[in-house]
């Protein structure tokens, strides 16, 4: 037997496929991974500390920067938490628009996630170009509604900042016509390409029990076979009025994660269809009249107490834990970031696989470093 020596490699902080500033300390024996340790914190921006010196509404734009792919979903989380704490009612129309935006965000995020994973496997940017094409269309819609493509800052406590512009619905209907083809194309790509199957099947398996014990959430957890979704477990907004299913996998490998993502895009599509149907008949304005001006938003002083508000973002359960001392600023503010918690079992998933699998597994978890480091 040849005597071999283990080699320690730093993948990152500057590396083409770490999806941000992130370091993986990988110990390899030849090409096989012996150990792997994720190191993060390069993007730490004092998000939680900032909250304690800001008013509640000042935090809204900061949540955009958590997971910059899904700013709408993050806004939703903070709005839910603070409304729960202060007991603010949300009009029906605002609720439906919120759900519409959250589900469009999910489609956008999963389209990009699938594309980036195939890119990490070495397909030279072609799938990325096709995934980004759909994402652009949704970003156009967001720009129309909120004025910004990525940092939307669209939600307010008690509703949303402004109603949908008149041009919004025709454009959305055009998009709805194009999307099913995109889902089918992506699924066919993943199901029929031999190399993709070779690279993804049986790689990076996360068993059900391990996933649950790491408190992983989102598509990663559902791919492992646990039917857990905050939209079903603790329905918020109008999700209990809408009809949708939760896709689950069985093995928990990369292949399952991406089948789950594609199926989730289809379910989101269903939800958006229902919202489009019901939106003309909704009652109430886009915001609760009691909170309708920015002055009222700034003057918000929730009663003493604490609250945990959570939503299902595309990446998993995003939770905001807020303690109020009755002043205009939160006493304590804590974010439960799905990217961060989903990233922790990466060592377990990678051990025993090859170097080339690390980046694909990382891509399949679908992290955004802005949310991991906060």
């Amino acid at each position, binding site marked *: 037997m040849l005597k071999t020596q283990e080699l320690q490699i730093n993948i990152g902080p500057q590396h083409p496929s770490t999806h941000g500033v992130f370091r993986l300390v990988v110990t390899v024996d030849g*090409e096989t991974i012996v150990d792997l340790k994720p190191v993060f914190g390069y993007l730490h921006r004092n998000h939680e500390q900032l909250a304690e010196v800001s008013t509640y509404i000042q935090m809204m734009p900061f949540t955009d920067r958590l997971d910059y792919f899904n700013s709408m979903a993050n806004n939703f989380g903070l709005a839910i938490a603070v409304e729960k704490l202060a007991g603010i009612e949300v009009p029906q129309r605002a609720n439906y628009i919120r759900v519409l935006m959250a589900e469009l965000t999910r489609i956008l995020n999963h389209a990009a996630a699938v594309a980036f994973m195939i890119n990490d496997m070495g*397909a030279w940017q072609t799938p990325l170009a096709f995934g980004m094409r759909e994402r652009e269309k949704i970003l156009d819609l967001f720009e129309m509604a909120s004025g910004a493509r990525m940092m939307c800052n669209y939600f307010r406590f008690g509703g949303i900042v402004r109603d949908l512009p008149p041009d919004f619905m025709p454009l959305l209907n055009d998009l709805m016509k194009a999307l099913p083809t995109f889902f089918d194309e992506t699924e066919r790509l993943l199901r029929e390409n031999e190399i993709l199957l070779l690279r993804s099947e*049986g790689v990076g398996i996360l068993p059900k029990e391990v996933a649950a014990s790491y408190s992983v959430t989102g598509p990663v957890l559902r791919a492992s076979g646990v039917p857990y979704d905050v939209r079903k477990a603790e329905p918020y907004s109008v999700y209990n009025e809408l009809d949708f299913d939760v896709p689950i996998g069985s*093995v928990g490998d990369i292949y*399952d994660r991406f089948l789950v993502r594609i199926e989730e895009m289809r379910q989101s599509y269903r939800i958006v269809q229902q919202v489009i149907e019901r939106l003309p008949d909704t009652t109430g304005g886009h915001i609760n009249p009691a909170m309708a001006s920015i002055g009222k938003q700034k003057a918000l002083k929730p009663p003493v107490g604490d609250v945990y508000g959570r939503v299902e973002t595309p990446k998993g359960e995003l939770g905001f834990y807020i303690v109020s001392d009755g002043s205009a600023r939160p006493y304590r503010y804590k974010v439960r970031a799905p990217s961060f918690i989903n990233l922790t079992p990466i060592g377990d998933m990678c051990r025993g696989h090859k170097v080339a699998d690390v980046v694909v597994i990382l891509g399949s978890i679908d992290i955004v470093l802005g949310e991991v480091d906060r």
Partner: protein
Amino acid sequence: MLQFLENIFGPSWIVSLIAFLISTTVILIVTPVTFMMMTWFERRIVARMQDRLGPNRVGPAGLLQAVADGVKMFTKENITPRAADKWVHLIAPLVATGPVIFLFAVIPWGYGLSPVDINVSVLFVIAVSSISAVGLMMGGWGSNNKFALLGAMRAVAQMVSYEIPAVIALLSMVLFTGTMNLNKYTELQGGLPILGNTLKDVIPDLGLGWFVFTPIGLVGFMIFFICILSEGERTPFDIPEADSEIVAGYMTEYSGMKFAVFYMGQFLFNYALSMVASIIFLGGWNFPGIPQLISIAPPIGALASAVVLGAKAWFLFFVMIWLRGAFPRLRMDQLMAFAWKFLLPLALINILSAALWLTIMLWCTGDCTQNPWVFTVGGINPLGWLGNSPVLRQLVGFVLTAIINAGAFFWLLNVNRRPAGETPADLARDQAFGTASLP
């Protein structure tokens, strides 16, 4: 031409020297220009696949983009890492690229346009193309960078593994044709598909007797083209420089002109091997009309033949770009398994087919009784019924080798098939994947 030069310059060694200088100069000009065109072509085609425009600012349709890139490369800072082995780091790109340019010396660019006509040019191509692996290892080792080292190890393992099926595929063609001279290959591939030159007297030379139309040539071409992809580090085998895994492999620490030289070596290697594949399997410069053109007006025919061969090589390069735009890459172990479990056995069976074909073609032609190697079964020559007609023999050989090669191909596919739907994980997935309707 030679006589004319001798009249002017006198001693023949001077004439040879001048002739070599001219052809060397032409090669050293043509190859970098080819490289520049290849980079432009690749970027435009991939851009087209990805819904983009690609380079279109410098010159007409961006054709001069490569010149701009060259200027950029020349003016870039040439960085050598402090801990690197300075000399090894410096020489590596030259060692990797030099042999590739040697290759062009023995390749016949067209009718009567081979710079050096040697009898063993196939052997030369095989031997010289392997030298660049040393350059890659030098680059990876000399950079003193872990990514570079990993990339170099991958590159060398990959090149060594894929050399074997490639050589065996070429060997079956050498057996098939009985020559190692690349010029001879083109001559042998005139005439009709499958039948080749055997009916030359009856039907005019169509220039379509390409070996790729025979079962042996088809399997050989398939194996050789896959090996080109792998040795030239093209997708889906671009593992040594997998940018999403190990940054840029052995080229990680290279910048400026040293990087450009590495890059040029790689692209020219692809082009040289595409040319070799076109010559050996795709009929070289043979194409309907070209043989006639050569016999009417040799200079124009030579030019046209060079264009035809170039078009074939560029087509193969286009296929490489197409694959690059469409496929993800394999993993190292899957790559090795593919070489050793699929390509190598198939190449060996192809050699068997070639030997069989040769036996059928040559068995007992001419004076049979004098041949001590011809054996008889019960006093009857088992292949005696074939007579002396090469057409009949060729057809029998075609059918037999087609059956053997197709059988081997599908058998190997079946043996190496992923156990789909059989592993417990697959069964579980088939049953359990779906949607859970939660309350």
